[in-house]
């Protein structure tokens, strides 16, 4: 597998991983992986816990020796270099600030180790950049979580690394502060132009900050691309479910080719659905199976009485409202679609139809262009909360 993100111009270094893998005894944390992070990009490794993303990051940092493969930084092979000889710095999970040193000395630590004598000016500038100038003589434990996080960033950035590695850097912060720090980190990255490699399990965080996201699962990269691209065109059920929510419908291919509009014609239950051929990642043969997917917010809801007023050419499915929850900006419906299981629909709260209450017969309809097709030989539940719970149980049993 080779993954390459779109290149960008910048001053940071690029990271190239060639066939890198890590095994612990019989357990494979990372399967052989080729990955290129272009210089100056903001790159996110996204996945659930135990998917190998942190191991990958630690191999780039030199904190973990790869079982196979090589790590290249700006064209130089650094696989055998210990961490203290790599021009890479890490913002650790829970920050790992030195408790016996004050903020100033924490930030100055890397400079001093490289034998730089006059650090005062640089450290002060750095502390100003992260707005912690007055805190220089405090000890880390006297600072709030958000402040500690900024010290950790300052301590790494002051060394002007070619690549900055961030290991769940916002995991310990509360939601509001996390949103604020996401924007802050993005701003700093744009300002300094250093390559950022960010590990997170939070798909919203990855999409907000990164230019390129690699979704990892079970020690492999499932899909790599720009956030919007991943969201609109998921290639696997795992990506479809892990990034946001997807409705996945098992369908049979009725007509694979020959139609003028280039769409595939599918049959799901009694309904006919259309799927643009270029949005189907699986090989579709007439008579074969595919999974037809659509995002809940792309689907509109009409009361069964109004079925006639739905425009022609849209995909339609009949169903019955099973549950409706009002969450402010939208209302989220769970629809029992005859023979197809439960589907989710998010309706914006613009004009609410009073008849759309649990028990009401409805018709779901959406533009065929919003449908995507996936290989039917995968678990429908991959990447959902249910699948995770199942995996956890397996781990405990083993």
């Amino acid at each position, binding site marked *: 597998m080779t993954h390459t993100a779109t290149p960008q111009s910048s001053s940071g270094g690029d990271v190239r991983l060639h066939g890198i893998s890590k095994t612990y005894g019989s357990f494979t944390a990372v399967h052989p992986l080729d990955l290129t992070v272009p210089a100056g990009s903001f790159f996110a490794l996204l996945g659930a816990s135990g998917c190998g993303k942190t191991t990958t990051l630690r191999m780039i940092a030199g*904190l973990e020796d790869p079982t196979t493969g090589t790590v290249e930084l700006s064209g130089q092979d650094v696989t055998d270099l210990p961490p*203290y000889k790599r021009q890479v710095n890490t913002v650790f999970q829970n920050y*790992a600030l030195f408790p*016996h040193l004050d903020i100033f000395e924490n930030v100055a*630590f*890397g400079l001093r180790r490289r034998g730089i004598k006059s650090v005062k000016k640089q450290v002060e500038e750095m502390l100003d950049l992260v707005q912690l100038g007055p805190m220089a003589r405090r000890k880390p434990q006297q600072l709030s979580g958000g402040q500690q996080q900024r010290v950790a960033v300052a301590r790494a950035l002051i060394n002007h690394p070619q690549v900055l590695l961030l290991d769940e850097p916002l995991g310990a912060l509360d939601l509001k502060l996390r949103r604020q720090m996401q924007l802050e980190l993005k701003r700093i990255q744009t300002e300094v132009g250093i390559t950022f490699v960010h590990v997170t399990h939070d798909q919203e965080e990855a999409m907000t900050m990164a230019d390129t996201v690699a979704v990892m699962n079970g020690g492999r990269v499932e899909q790599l691309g720009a956030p919007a691209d991943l969201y609109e065109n998921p290639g696997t059920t795992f990506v479809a479910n892990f990034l946001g929510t997807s409705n996945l419908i098992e369908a049979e291919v009725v007509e694979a080719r020959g139609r003028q509009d280039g769409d595939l014609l599918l049959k799901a239950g009694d309904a006919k659905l259309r799927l643009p051929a270029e949005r189907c990642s699986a090989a579709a043969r007439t008579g074969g199976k595919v999974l037809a997917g659509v995002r809940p917010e792309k689907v509109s809801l009409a009361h069964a009485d109004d079925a006639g007023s739905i425009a022609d050419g849209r995909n339609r499915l009949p169903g019955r409202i099973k549950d409706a929850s009002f969450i402010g900006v939208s209302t989220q419906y769970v629809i029992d679609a005859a023979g197809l299981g439960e589907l989710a629909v998010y309706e914006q709260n613009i004009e609410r139809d009073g008849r759309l209450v649990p028990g009401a017969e409805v018709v779901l309809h959406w533009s065929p262009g919003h449908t995507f097709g996936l290989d039917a030989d995968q678990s429908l539940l991959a990447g959902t909360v249910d699948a995770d719970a199942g995996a956890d149980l397996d781990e405990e049993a083993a």
Partner: protein
Amino acid sequence: MSTTEAPAPPAEPEAEPLDIRKAPTRKRLVPYWLLLPGILWLLVFFAAPLVYQASTSIQTGSLEDGFKVTWHFATYLDAIAEYWPQFLRSVLYAGTATALCLLLGYPLAYLIAFKAGRWRNLVMILVIAPFFTSFLIRTLAWKTILADGGPVVGVLNSLHVLDVTSWLGLTEGQRVLATPLAVVCGLTYNFLPFMVLPLYTSLERIDPRLHEAAGDLYARPATTFRRVTFPLSMPGVVAGTLLTFIPAAGDYINAELLGSTDQKMIGNVIQSQFLRVLDYPTAAALSFILMAAILTMVTIYIRKSGTEDLV
């Protein structure tokens, strides 16, 4: 001084004790009832004897006629004048043994804390297990190990180590037993676990990510140790040195069993004054001088090591 309360791990941040002054009277007395028997025990059998000892040290008299308080402070001066070599020797031996304990104990504590992995419990048992055999029996075993003409002396001799140590005045001729080296060796052995355990406790608390962070910030392993690991283990170092030095300075067993009359420490003098010569005022004065000397040294040491404001 809470750093010295090992071997039990130092207390966690306090869980907001009840402020008793706001409680109703019946509840208000609860802590005092809890304290009463134990504190009384310590007051009667620990504090009062010290006061008694103080008064004894300024008494004069004889066994036959009884002793009387005569404010005879000259006993102190006489004691120092007569026994200063033993005092000096105690400080020197105990100091050397403490330094050796730190030197030997640190790698072992580091091994248990960071490198032992699944062997950790086994190594821990091996450190604590010697405690379960009477320390006198184990000290006597050193007589066998260091015996004249035994394998240890033989090896040291063929490596010419004994030539060096006897030139330094630590051994005499071809023997190790009945020399300062044997006494220091015994002291080091006896108090080593008291160094290892607090060191281990403070090393084990260090977040391994701090080592990684130091490496990530261009510190070589040796620099990481000097700048991060060692400073963070200071509470353990201070606790360990105190737990080793204090009992070693007052010890008389190693000097008695492994040394000769030339290696007598102040503990030997106090013991013989009290149990054999029956000169209680001198024994009391010597105890007080020893106590005062140790308290002074410990206070200076804690100040200097600056551990008061350490985490």
